[in-house]
Structures are given as C-alpha cells and as structure tokens.
C-alpha cells in the first residue's frame, strides 16, 4: 500500500497536509508557551488545523462535501465559545490575587 498519492497531489491533500502541520505547530506552541493567553491562541491554531484536515479530505474532484462543511461551522462556533470562556477565566485569574483583600475590606462596610 502506498502512502503517497500516485497522481499529482490534489488540492484537498495540500490543505489537509497544511492542516496536519498547523495542528502540530499549535501543539508545540501550547507546550512551550508559558502564558495562558498565548496558549489560548495556540488552541485556536490547533482547531483551525483540524478544520482544514476535515475540509481538505472532503474536497472531491468536482465538489466539496457539505457534511464536513457543516461540521466545521459548528466547530468554529464552539471554538469561539471556548475562547471567550478561556479569556474570561484568564482575566479573572489575574484579578484573583487582589480580590481576597477587597472581599475582606468590603465585608465590614456592608
């Protein structure tokens, strides 16, 4: 069984392989980057890579499969929901060191 396509590489394969490299790049950055905001960005790149694999492999010679397209649109929306929650959590974590003092200072007043 051959791994490489015998004919010239199709457009679908070019994008799917790009997606594979993107996924690995994103994972690498996720590991070596030490700031949560940069890791959140890396997760988004991993997601984009996975979407590109899905879309590329659904690209037939004459048409693109509507099924992976719908799946990718769903995925993009879930990814933005995750990013929003992640960003809110990162900001909240940065606030956290102060809030105990504020909470204690605020209680006697109330």
């Amino acid at each position: 069984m051959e791994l490489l396509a015998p004919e010239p590489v199709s457009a679908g394969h070019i994008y799917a392989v790009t997606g594979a490299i993107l996924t690995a790049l994103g994972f690498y950055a996720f590991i070596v980057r030490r700031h949560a905001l940069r890791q959140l960005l890396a997760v988004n790149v991993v997601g984009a890579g996975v979407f590109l694999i899905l879309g590329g492999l659904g690209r037939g010679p004459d048409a693109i499969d509507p099924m992976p397209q719908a799946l990718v649109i769903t995925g993009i929306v879930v990814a933005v929901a995750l990013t929003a929650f992640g960003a809110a959590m990162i900001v909240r974590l940065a606030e956290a060191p102060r809030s105990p003092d504020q909470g204690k200072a605020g209680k006697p007043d109330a």
Partner: protein
Amino acid sequence: MSGAFDLILCLMILGTAGIALFVRDALAAIAFFIAFGNLMGLAWLSLGAVNVALAEIAIGAGVTGILLILARARLLALGDPVHSGDTPTWLWLGAFAACTSFSVLLAATVLSITPESGLDRVVAPLMPGLGIENRVTGVLLAFRAYDTLLESFVLLGALVAVWSLAPARAWPGRPAEPRMADGQMHQVAGASGRVLLPVALVMAAYLVWAGSDLPGGAFQAGTVLAGGLMLAAMGGAIGLPRSDRPLLRAALVLGPLVFLAIGLGGIAAGGFLIYPKGLAKALIVTIEYTLFLSIGVTLALLVAGPPVADSPVPDAGGNG
C-alpha cells in the same frame, strides 16, 4: 483553482501561524492571528466552501481576534505584562521531537486517505424535499439538526459560564464598557457605530434569508449583528445591558427555545426534529431568524465578558 495558488496560500498560512505562535510581543501575535484567520478564509474559498469561509473570517478571525485583544488589554490594566516566560531546554527539545513526529504521522495518515465528496451525492437528491438549495444549511438545519440544536445550547452555556466568573458583588451588573480611551477615537467609533449598526442589521437579515439558497446562514449573520453591536458599544452609541434584564434574557434563549419547540413539534410528524412535508422551508427560516438574533446577542455579550463590580449598581439591585 491552480495548484501554485494553493501551495503559496498554504505556505502563507503556515508562516502567519508560526509568527502568531512564536513572536515575542503579544499584540503582534494577535495581529498575525487575525491575518492567519483571514488567509484561512481564503483557503476555504479556494476549497469551494463559501459558507465556511464566511464563518471563519467573521468568527474565527474577527470575534476571536477581538476577544484576544480585549483580554490582553484587561491583563495589561491588571499589571500582567503578558510575557511568556522562558522554557527549559529539555521541554522544548522534547516537545519539538514529539510534535515533529506527530506532524509526520498525521500528514502520512491524511495522505493515505483519498479526498472524497461522497455525501454530496447523498445530500443533493434530498434537497428538493426541503425547498432550499444551500446544502450546508440543509445539513445544519435538517439532516444534522441535532448537532446545531446542541450547538446553540453550547453557546448559551458558554455565556452562563462566562457570567458565572463575575465576582459575587458585581452580579447582576453590566460588563465592563469596551470604550476607547482616546477621546477622538471614541467619537469616531461612536459615529460609525451609529451608522453601521442599522447597516449590520439589514446585512445580517439578508444573510439569513440568502442562507437558504446561497452561502450565508444564521451563524454568519449572528456574527455580523454581534460586530455591529460591539462597534456601537465601543463608541458609546449603545450601553451594555445589565445581565438580569428580562428582555435580554428573552433574546438570549429565544433561538434555542424556538428550535427546541419546533423539534419537539416534529414528533407529531414522525420524530424529533422532523419537519412536516411542505413546511420544511418555513420552519427552517423561522429557526434561522430566531437563532440569528440569539447568536448575535450571545456573541456580543461573550466578547463583552462577565459583569464587573466597578459599574454603578443601582440601589434597587439586590433583594435576594
């Protein structure tokens, strides 16, 4: 499209992704991420997936970019310089080896699969029964409506999760105003927000309508609405609502609830999420319009973030 174009585009995608991931300055990284998202949109266009290209540029590049920029600005204001610390040598060497082999393995696997659009031939003959022509909309709202229904609840759940991060004393207040610090910039944003919000509304309504037969749909339109709302809020043309406002709550749950109700109504026609014959298009358009409104408001509030304590809390607030 020609192979050379695809190849150059893919190299540019990898290049912008690499810069976005590894450049030192966080703002430059986010800027390159937005460029990366737009190039991804071009890639989807080149693949022939216009629906996805719209979603990728609007949501993947636009909304995610704004989210990251706002998060960075808030971190800077809190005294976090957003610098990535140094990585020990063993970690990046190990990660590099692992990710390189992962990449090779994944690429080999991907190359062993022949790209195929088999389901296109399955979906195409089923479309006349729905009365719409956009196959992606058909998959999203009829053949795999279950996924989309759950997705609309995921978006709602994400907003609940973001709101749950609000400090107890800030609840139920308003999110932090995303106002521009510079006075003149603020005026420009305000003026364009006032003009663009109605334009965004018309354009979004058109995108939903067009989504039945041409590329478009509820998610793309919802993002356009969210963009208009955010720009108007940045310029102070509209204020952000308190999170316990009944009208706001209604707008948030309207889409998912209408979708769920129509899905349950389908039981009479034969099963959950089955549309009665002849009514399919009317029901799909109804779902899409209500869903678009909810998605737009939800996305705008997701970008705005959780309620903050600094906002003035009216005295009539807590009686719990």
